[in-house]
């Protein structure tokens, strides 16, 4: 393997979990669609790797590519996909012995899915624990505006998860 491939493998191994989490959140827990998006994200990372100048830190750079890949993924929700998604949500909800954590995650996916694309990206980055300044750099809106928006989405999300 060449040096680009070695760097790429390191990036892949270190960032796969967080990219996968973000894509799962973006697709309301649809694993197969999320995996497609993860693959697409890493393909874009490869294609842009030579142009990376370390101006924003590799983490921010990867999040930008991942968020943009998810934003660009506009497809009509296929009926089959929608049914699969709903089925898997119902199975988790009605299980006799549900892991509370998993249940909450499913509920969280559902609630995140109700948000607009940009708000989804913002709250997923917040859930990842990124500083709000970094989120504003990734999304491209002012820090103050991000702060206000996060506050509003947090309220909406908490309310939704608690079925209020």
């Amino acid at each position, binding site marked *: 393997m060449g040096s680009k491939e070695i760097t790429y493998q390191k990036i892949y191994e270190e960032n796969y979990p967080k990219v996968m989490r973000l894509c799962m959140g973006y697709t309301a827990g649809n694993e197969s669609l999320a995996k497609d998006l993860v*693959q697409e994200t890493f393909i874009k990372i490869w294609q842009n790797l030579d142009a990376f100048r370390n101006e924003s830190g590799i983490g921010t750079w990867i999040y930008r590519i991942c968020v943009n890949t998810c934003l660009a993924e506009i497809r009509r929700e296929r009926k089959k996909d929608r049914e699969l998604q709903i089925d898997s949500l119902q199975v988790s909800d009605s299980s006799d012995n549900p892991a509370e954590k998993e249940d909450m995650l499913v509920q969280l996916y559902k609630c995140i899915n109700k948000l607009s694309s940009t708000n989804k990206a913002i709250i997923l980055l917040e859930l*990842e624990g990124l500083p709000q300044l970094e989120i504003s750099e990734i999304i*491209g809106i002012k820090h103050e505006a991000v702060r206000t928006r996060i506050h509003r989405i947090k309220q909406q999300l908490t309310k939704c998860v608690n079925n209020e």
Partner: protein
Amino acid sequence: MNNFEDLQNKWQNQSEVSATEDGFQSLLKSVKSIEQKQRTGNIVLTLTIIILVSFLIYVSGYKSATFMLGIGLMIGSLVIRIAIELFSLKRLRTINFSKNASTFTEDLTTYYSFRKYTHYIITPLALVFYTVGFVILLPLFKASLSNGFYVYILCSSVVFLVLFSVFLYKQVKNELFKLKQLQMQEGV
């Protein structure tokens, strides 16, 4: 009752999906294959343009003005359509995914808006010119080909035109849907 910090805690502690060596190798294979396909695609489209233009130059020796007009319209509309497709593809590939999401969405919206003009103006015009060219050539085909072959050309062309129109319709519908969604995202 969960507050946001609980949700965040659960989110960050969800069962980890880790990267595998197999996953990476398969990704690397996809990356290489995409690069190869892009190269092949560009070569095929460029070769098609060269062949069509060469063919037009070759047949330009014919004295029949009707033939030249018909074949010129057909080949010309195809060449223009392919050239625009190549240009669009190049433009789409230059959209930078590592910019911030707002700039990226704007770039993508600009791209699909440009595609809208292609779909609403260039594509229908190309289709009309192609069909007119073909209709102009029909009497020449009838005069020089056997009846059976003439009927075959006529029928297959109609089928091709219908299928191609359906394909274009789907592509246009899909891209316009994307543009609409992007404009909604920008508005949020």
